[in-house]
């Protein structure tokens, strides 16, 4: 099938960037070798919905090398054209261009479905839902789909409860190889770095407020503290608050923490976390960013209404002058700061998440026919396989449970 991309000539730059990422993705390569050996993907068609950048491009290449016909689609805003060009040159069908209209994006997704997919790997479950609404026929021969986001799984579970889901869907997002690393180390580190890149702040000695001490908030607090910030955590959950306290962070209600804040992260994933009252209470010239994130996590609409001036200082830094005369800076328009304004999660972290995706494809091809329609967890053994492959690649050895330990464990009372 012929690709639709913006500029085939820029492939070399894309190929270089893909090769750089590949260096740091041993787990994905190992899983790819396993897929090649099984021959399971030979002459199968796999549809990938991706943020099209160098790391995810490696998933497409690994599946292709294992023998699959690979078709990639990506919404215009998330397309890196040189990466699209490099994939096309390697024989992957790419239906994605950064200048595509919403109509084009939809047309690309339908073209992909019409090609007759054996497996669909989705990001946000939009194409799974599109298939159910517009191309139910495409689901008949599909072994199943994999979904890698929390927000994409939510609607699929609703469909399942209504009996509307026609295929098995694997919840890649819920694998431990994903959320234990992706969220803490990946999102935590890259959000702090992106905020520093954008703000130009020297964080040492500054007060950094983290709203929400879940996986992402924990990673942000650790990284900011490592660079010399004084971190204050705010929470609604008593256990998370106690964890933060014992990790050595001051815990205070957000409204009180804001008065001291030089930099605020919202890491709750809940709308209206940083409300207008917080923004008004904020120390003059503070920066506010979202890690992870949902729309209106920072009350931007209210902030705009209460501001006498809104100025774009530079790309992804907006200065709001409040009616009180104070200034607050919003980073990346309140979107997840590491995705919107930097290169997203670090490569070695995405290595884990994409290896899980590749194993999900294998599992669906192997067992999809016997799985009932619905949302399924990734089998424990596959999750653990990814962790072991990563340890192997890093040259880290671990102990085995001994027979005597096993005996102890099996003894019960």
């Amino acid at each position, binding site marked *: 099938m012929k690709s639709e991309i913006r500029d085939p000539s820029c492939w070399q730059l894309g190929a270089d960037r893909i090769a750089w990422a590949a260096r740091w993705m041993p787990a994905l390569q190992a899983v790819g070798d396993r897929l090649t050996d099984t021959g399971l993907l030979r002459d199968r068609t796999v549809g990938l919905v991706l943020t099209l950048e160098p790391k995810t491009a490696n998933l497409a290449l690994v599946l292709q090398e294992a023998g699959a016909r690979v078709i990639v689609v990506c919404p215009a805003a998330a397309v890196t054209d040189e990466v699209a060009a490099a994939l096309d040159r390697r024989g992957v069908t790419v239906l994605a261009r950064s200048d595509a209209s919403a109509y084009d994006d939809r047309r690309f997704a339908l073209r992909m479905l019409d090609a007759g997919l054996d497996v669909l790997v989705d990001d946000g479950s939009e194409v799974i839902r599109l298939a159910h609404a517009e191309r139910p026929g495409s689901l008949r021969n599909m072994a199943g789909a994999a979904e890698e986001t929390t927000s994409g799984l939510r609607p699929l579970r609703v469909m399942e409860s209504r009996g509307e889901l026609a295929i098995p869907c694997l919840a890649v997002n819920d694998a431990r190889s994903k959320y234990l690393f992706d969220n803490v180390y990946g999102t935590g580190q890259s959000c702090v770095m992106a905020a520093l890149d954008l703000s130009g702040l*020297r964080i040492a*000695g500054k007060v950094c407020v983290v709203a929400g001490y879940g996986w992402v908030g924990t990673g942000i607090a650790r990284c900011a503290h490592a660079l010399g910030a004084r971190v204050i955590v705010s929470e609604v959950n008593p256990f998370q608050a106690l964890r933060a306290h014992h990790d050595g962070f001051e815990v205070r209600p957000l409204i009180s923490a804001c008065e001291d804040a030089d930099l605020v992260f919202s890491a709750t994933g809940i709308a209206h976390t940083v409300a207008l009252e917080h923004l008004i209470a904020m120390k003059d010239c503070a920066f506010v960013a979202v890690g992870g994130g949902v729309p209106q996590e920072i009350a931007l609409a209210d902030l705009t209404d209460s501001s006498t001036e809104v100025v774009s200082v530079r790309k992804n830094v907006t200065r709001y002058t409040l009616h009180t005369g104070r200034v607050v800076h919003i980073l990346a328009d309140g979107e997840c700061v590491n995705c919107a304004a930097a290169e997203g999660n670090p490569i070695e972290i995405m290595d884990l998440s994409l290896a899980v995706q590749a194993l999900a494809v294998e599992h669906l091809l192997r067992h999809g026919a016997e799985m009932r329609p619905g949302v399924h967890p990734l089998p424990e053994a596959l999750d653990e396989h990814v962790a072991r492959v990563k340890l192997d690649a890093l040259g880290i050895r671990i102990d085995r449970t001994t027979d005597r330990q096993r005996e102890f464990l099996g003894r019960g009372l």
Partner: protein
Amino acid sequence: MPPASQAGRIADSSPASPGEQAISLVSPDAPILESTVRDLLTDGSLSGHRISMRLPLDASAGLLAALLTESGAELTVGAVPATTSAGPADGIAAALSARGVTVCRTRSGLTGSRPDLVIDERAELTRAMAAERPEDFARIRGVVECTGPGTALLRELDPPFPVLSADPPSATHPGIAQAVIQTLLRRTNMVLPGKLVALLGYGGAGRSLAAAIRATGGRVVVLEADPLLALEASLEGHRVDDAAEGLSRADVVITVGRRLSVRHLPLLKPGAVLARAGDGEIELDLPEGEGIMNFRISPDREVFVIDGGAPPPYPAENADLTLSTIALACRHLATAGPEPGVRELPREIHETVARAGLTLRGLRLDSL
């Protein structure tokens, strides 16, 4: 003051030059320089002094130059290009020219001007004057040298005038650590937790960097030649080793005060990433520029060098500390007339800068 109508016609109708804009943009990040230092310099201590300054000409250095001029000094600036991000050096130079500063473009910063005070980096200008213009050299009343290696070179010169060694204040170390980590991660998109990082040097900045890497989840191996520093590193919980062992295992190598040279190359693990901080040096023949440079050690082994071995761009607030210290060192030379020879900066200068930094943050000193 020109008549108001004329000012309106000339000054207001033309937009500020790019260099002037860049200088005014960093001004809010230099509160110590703009408040405390500016106030102290209104005493006229620099009036009539001829100062030659040779520093990488970024916007912050432009701000210092502007302040020295406004304080009555007659200033010559060697427009050494800022080392990273191509810098707005040309624009800054143009803006300073427009303010009456003499800008020259020789590498040493040498000009026909006969300075009585010199602000130098790596002793380039002072040594050039000693070699090529002995008469002008003899007229120098004092030098402020901004680097450790430069201070050592000047000591060898046995100068007949005072040299103040204005190393960056220790409060800049956390900012240096941040900049190194930030640039490393931005260029590579790698994850720091789990990495083994070899640090060439455990001086002040090295110690800050080691602490930051460990707190982020990385491991550190310190390569030191100084036994005192090596012992401290060990008691602070870091591995200490020699280059043969440390470099062969490290995923990332960062020079902080020490030097990585071609003879180290065979020791490096293939695929290692090399980066530089501050006074550290990477002596590989690479063009400087943003990004990751491949450096092939042998046909089948390569390493990666961040920004061609250039230091990272430091946060603007670091420049506030450094440049404030330099300005006050200049003032000290002009007013106190210290004895000839290379000497440490008087402690009260560091204290003045630190106190200003505390006051601006609303922090209190204890006097119990």
